[in-house]
């Protein structure tokens, strides 16, 4: 807790300094949020095109015309990459983390405002570079978001593996640099800028989740950055890190001695922590919202913190579970498998504690709460397919089938998106000073919850029946023919669910300008962001420095005058 004065900077004048190259963490948070919003709509449209082509391969689509197999695979690649990096990593951490971490711990800004600005604009450039891959000769790469070498290392291995693949790797490398800067900022801010009385164990669970996510980011993105640079060297400088002696279509590749498995080890050393980078902030938000709208303290605060720390730690020891079928030593599979199963334990603790928070609460069903409850449901459904895939024995039938996308979409895709939705509905009043429409919120929730289950639950059945991932058509392999009707059902569900997101978009932008004015603390919540003005002033607390006297979730305290005690309320407000 160093002197905070040194981090203060005067409110900027002029449009560019205020809204474009802003140093204010709140503006940067919103910039991240709207970048993610743009990205999520791009990613969603790509997935819709995929679903349509998969079940009607000969259909001609507006803008795209005929979709060729290689076009389908570039949709696969770009959907995955955009969603994982520019949505699931960007919105929860860059967006809400940036906006609310400093306010929730009582700081006037992030520790390094210039670094913060730089990190956003690097992410922005990374996004432009990524999207540019669509528009170069050969189009976007077809190697999937995991970019397995040698497919990703050899320009001759397919269309899209030329300039498109170079742009793809460059974009990811830029994103890594941005995320490293962001992670440093988050860690320093959390450790050094907490207000008086805000001990680590008084931080809201959201702050813990952003803090742990930043640790994971710091350790994981560096590895991906290095792996990406090596891949660029293999592609452009004639090195052979990932490519052994071999031929493509009868032509020698000119490489020798490299190891395709090296890329997989490096990629998944990043890739597995990455799924926790996507989901941990969602866990934090779900905890915050469930407690607020149950009007109860979170069940087992300490257990929640330790569970997140355990998930973060174990998350670095399980990357090999993506590689059970890769040719890696079958002995190491045992160790990776046990570690993976062990992650189930802290995950189960969290679920148990969320249910414990609801139990004997006084539940209010505002939109943030609906999405938090949806988050728990999806977390359970997506989580429980994990112990299937964690067993190498069951990966023999299930690996690389539709069972895998079913699993990770439910948990790190949709559950994380529900976390983002819960956060949006919860913090919208603070960010924009107006309330979102509740009726539209409910419609959006019901369509999205039922819709996503209709999309992803049947994918488990497809995986069991042996449908491999990343097939652009199901017509060529006879045993897949009987799965086409179920695939059509999924496509219909996807069309409806995507359409329902327009309700959200309308609600978001309409409420921004026309929603009823919000009070400073519309949810009667306890954490610091609700003690300041709506929207918060440039330095967050208008010159005051908050002093924290209470834990983050003091709801329904017996003897207290209201059913909540804010963290800054005088210590004497109730004995507990």
């Amino acid at each position, binding site marked *: 807790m160093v002197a905070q004065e040194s981090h203060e900077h005067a409110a900027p004048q002029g449009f560019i300094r205020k809204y474009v190259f802003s140093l204010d963490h709140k503006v940067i948070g919103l910039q991240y949020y709207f970048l993610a919003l743009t990205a999520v709509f791009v990613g969603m449209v790509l997935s819709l095109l995929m679903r349509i082509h998969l079940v009607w391969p000969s259909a001609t689509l507006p803008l795209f015309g005929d979709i060729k197999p290689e076009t389908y695979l570039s949709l696969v690649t770009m959907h995955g990459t955009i969603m994982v990096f520019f949505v699931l990593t960007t919105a929860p951490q860059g967006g809400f983390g940036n906006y609310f971490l400093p306010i929730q711990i009582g700081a006037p800004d992030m520790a390094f405002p210039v670094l913060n600005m730089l990190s956003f604009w690097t992410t922005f450039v990374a996004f432009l570079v990524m999207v540019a891959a669509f528009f170069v000769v050969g189009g976007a790469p077809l190697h999937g978001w995991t970019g397995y070498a040698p497919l990703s290392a050899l320009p001759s291995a397919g269309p899209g593996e030329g300039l498109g693949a170079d742009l793809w790797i460059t974009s990811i490398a830029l994103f890594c640099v941005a995320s490293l800067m962001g992670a440093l900022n988050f860690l320093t801010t959390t450790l050094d800028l907490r207000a008086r009385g805000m001990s680590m164990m008084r931080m809201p669970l959201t702050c813990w989740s952003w803090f742990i996510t930043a640790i994971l980011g710091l350790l994981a993105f560096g590895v991906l950055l290095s792996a990406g640079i090596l891949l660029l060297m293999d592609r452009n400088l004639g090195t052979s890190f990932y490519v052994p002696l071999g031929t493509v279509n009868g032509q020698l590749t000119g490489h020798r001695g490299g190891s395709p498995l090296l890329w997989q080890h490096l990629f998944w050393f990043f890739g597995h922590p990455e799924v926790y980078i996507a989901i941990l902030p969602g866990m934090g938000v779900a905890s915050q919202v469930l407690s607020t709208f149950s009007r*109860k303290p979170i*069940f087992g605060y300490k*257990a929640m913190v330790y569970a997140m720390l355990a998930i973060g730690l174990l998350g670095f020891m399980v990357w090999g579970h993506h590689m059970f079928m890769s040719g890696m030593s079958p002995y190491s599979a*045992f160790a990776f498998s*046990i570690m993976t199963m062990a992650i189930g334990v802290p995950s*189960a*603790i969290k679920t148990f504690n969320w249910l414990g928070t609801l139990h004997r609460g006084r539940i209010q069903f505002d939109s943030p709460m609906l999405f938090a409850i949806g988050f728990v449901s999806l977390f359970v459904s997506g989580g429980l397919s994990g112990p299937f895939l964690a067993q190498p024995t069951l990966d023999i039938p299930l690996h690389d089938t539709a069972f895998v996308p079913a699993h990770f979409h439910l948990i790190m895709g949709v559950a994380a998106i529900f976390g983002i939705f819960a956060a949006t509905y919860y913090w919208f009043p603070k960010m924009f000073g107006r309330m979102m429409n509740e009726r539209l919120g409910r419609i959006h929730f019901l369509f999205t919850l039922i819709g996503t289950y209709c999309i992803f639950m049947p994918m488990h059945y*497809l995986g069991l*029946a042996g449908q*491999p991932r990343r097939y652009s058509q199901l017509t060529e392999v006879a045993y897949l023919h009987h799965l086409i009707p179920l695939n059509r059902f999924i496509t219909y569900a996807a069309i409806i669910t995507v359409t329902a997101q327009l309700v959200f978009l309308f609600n978001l932008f309409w409420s921004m300008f026309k929603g009823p004015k919000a009070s400073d603390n519309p949810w009667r919540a306890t954490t610091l962001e609700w003690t300041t003005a709506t929207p918060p002033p440039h330095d967050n607390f208008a010159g005051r420095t908050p002093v924290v006297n209470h834990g983050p979730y003091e709801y329904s305290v017996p003897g207290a005058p209201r059913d909540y005690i804010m963290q800054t309320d005088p210590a004497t407000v109730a004995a507990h």
Partner: protein
Amino acid sequence: MGLVLLCVIWLITFVSTYFFVAKTWWLPTGASAAAAAIDHQFAITFVLMGIVFIAAQLALGLFAWQYRDTGSGKGASYSHGNTRLEIIWTTLTAILFIGLNLAGGPIWARERFQPAQEDATRVEVTGMQFAWYFRYPGPDGKFGVTKPELVDPSTGGEGALGLDPADPASKDDVVTGIMEVPVNRQVEVILRAHDVIHSFFVPNMRFKQDAVPGLAIHMHFTPTETGDYEIACAELCGLGHYKMHGMLKVVSQDDFDKWLAAREAEKQ
């Protein structure tokens, strides 16, 4: 809204569970020695995870409805948790997950730790964009040398593999586009790939293994039912990934011997 949540969550739970229990879409019929054990491990996992799934979702729906704010003015209970419950819960899940894992261990060990038997039928399986080639060593029991610089897919199977005609061991090697093996005898597959990673997936055999450039991966399985079984590529390998399939024919030992002899005769 509490009642709506209860109905929606419970309905999702029951419908999802129904299609699993009814086995409307299920694992393809197993036709190998490992299938029974793998399917059994799947069934155990499925039942245990299914119980947790149903219990957690039902509780979630129930709590949402039961503890809704009814406007009666009755406050929520003030509790920060219960350490004893946490410990019980943690121990139970740890036993469940780790136990499940240990139960599946021996199956994995049998399939992957032990080398193939001496008398196994040996087949080299090579993946390349976008076809599978199968090679049998012939009467000498030895695979001839292949060289990447000799690879020429336009000249048929042997050329596609880059078989070196100068090597005496390659004289009697048989290269085919379909894989034929005798029933009830272990098959040793030696997996290779020329260009990018492919994955040799035979759902009915409960067999899957990546074929990786630069590696020769030795695996085995034992077919127990005669018949034709489709082979699919399960690792993204390029634009033709979806059509990179092959056929595994499991026949009697007699039929296999006749078939292989006929292929040898064709070569001479």
